[in-house]
């Protein structure tokens, strides 16, 4: 299992960050407004903000770290994207709904470099579903730790596992994300994960036509059972939305997942760095174009 975890941990994406011209002084070189970076699937986009600010600091038309009138956020194809989901999860969701990633039939997929294009923008008001990018250096860490508290509670019924980490261990845990230290991350996350969980922390995103997005967080009880995805099909496809499970496939960490896999096995192998298992329901037509 560790081998799969390692592969998941090492997963990366090519990200092209374009910066809105409004950030830069007039006459700045156009190439300064574009960054091409290789980003782990298992991190937050805002962990790259210091790199972005550093890259453009000589050309900024204002001081973003002391700016109190404007908000910053990322967009993809004009739609706001939420930095508070792992980068890989954002990508999996956008693949399902965006033509940007569709590979032309005349090109061999192995010769195509897929770019996840994000645009850094600013405005006087913020899209209602986006957490603003603040200037505080520990915004991502605070959010991530809070996610783990929830995960710990869902798995164990209490936050003791994470709250009993020493200050050094907590720091080491976050540092393992930033420095990509798989060994440290595994060592500490194991302290929080029981061998028999009460529930499984799972977040499901479904993308449909016209960019409509449905996110759900079902409560899946694990007391005395280890259901397969097929067993919990109703919870996976969301009771709120009547959709045909047969026309969707399940993707986690960019990989198509069979319906007959046991949920807890899937969780242990494919959970994200914030402790949640993210599942993306992708229309089959998108899968045929992009994931295969």
């Amino acid at each position: 299992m560790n081998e799969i975890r390692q592969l998941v941990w090492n997963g990366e994406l090519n990200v092209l960050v374009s910066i809105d011209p409004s950030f830069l002084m007039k006459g700045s070189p156009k190439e300064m407004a574009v960054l091409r970076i290789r980003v782990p699937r298992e991190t937050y986009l805002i962990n790259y903000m210091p790199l972005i600010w550093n890259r453009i600091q000589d050309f900024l038309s204002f001081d973003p770290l002391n700016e109190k009138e404007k908000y910053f956020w990322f967009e993809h194809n004009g739609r706001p994207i939420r930095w508070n989901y792992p980068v890989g999860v954002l990508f999996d969701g956008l693949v399902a709904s965006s033509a940007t990633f569709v590979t032309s039939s005349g090109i061999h997929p192995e010769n195509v470099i897929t770019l996840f294009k994000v645009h850094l923008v600013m405005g006087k008001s913020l899209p209602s579903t986006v957490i603003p990018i603040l200037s505080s250096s520990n915004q991502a860490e605070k959010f991530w730790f809070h996610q783990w508290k929830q995960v710990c509670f869902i798995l164990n019924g209490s936050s003791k596992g994470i709250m009993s980490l020493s200050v050094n261990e907590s720091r080491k845990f976050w540092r393992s994300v930033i420095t990509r230290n798989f060994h440290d991350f595994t060592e500490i996350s194991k302290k929080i994960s029981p061998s028999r969980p009460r529930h499984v922390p799972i977040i499901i995103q479904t993308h449909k036509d016209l960019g409509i997005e449905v996110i759900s967080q079902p409560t899946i009880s694990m007391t005395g059972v280890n259901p397969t995805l097929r067993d919990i099909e109703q919870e996976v496809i969301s009771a709120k939305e009547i959709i045909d499970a047969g026309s969707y496939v399940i993707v986690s960490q960019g990989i198509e997942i069979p319906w007959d896999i046991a949920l807890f096995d899937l969780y242990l192998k494919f959970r994200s760095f914030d402790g949640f298992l993210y599942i993306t329901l992708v229309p089959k037509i998108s899968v045929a174009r992009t994931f295969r």
Partner: protein
Amino acid sequence: MIEYEEWQRQLRSLYDSQIFQNWVLCQEIRLIDDKNALLLCLKPTHKLQESAKIIENKSLDHIELYLTYSKIYSEPLLLLRIWEEKRSDDMIMTRLMFPCKVESLLGVEGKFRLGLETFISMENAVWYSFHPCDTSSIVGDQKEFRPTYLRRWTSIFVFSWLGYEDL
């Protein structure tokens, strides 16, 4: 902790008690039946207004509180949004405010921890949440005190930092 059914009962009871309606800060109150939640619109205290001026150089318009239930923690969950007043020419507008040091601005540093989150059950809207993981040890959930759990929680999580004064 408090069971969901008990939360529903105590929330209704809290609403009926008129404690919020009689609160001098309360401008609007709405019981949201289908979500078993309570939305409050409050005018900012003088102290909050001063903090916003000093820390953010901004003027507050109102504070929104949303009392809801966390099914993860089986606890009441307090959400908060801060609205600032923006004046340009003859227009007065309001917009959401996201101070970096929100605990300092609210004067709850060291008492409560807050974080920004999006909430799936609220159309993924962004709110500050008061982290609820220590709630039962703060509020006390021994059997004899359970019938007044939410009233006590309100006293600690809401009135302790906003103050309470009757109309």
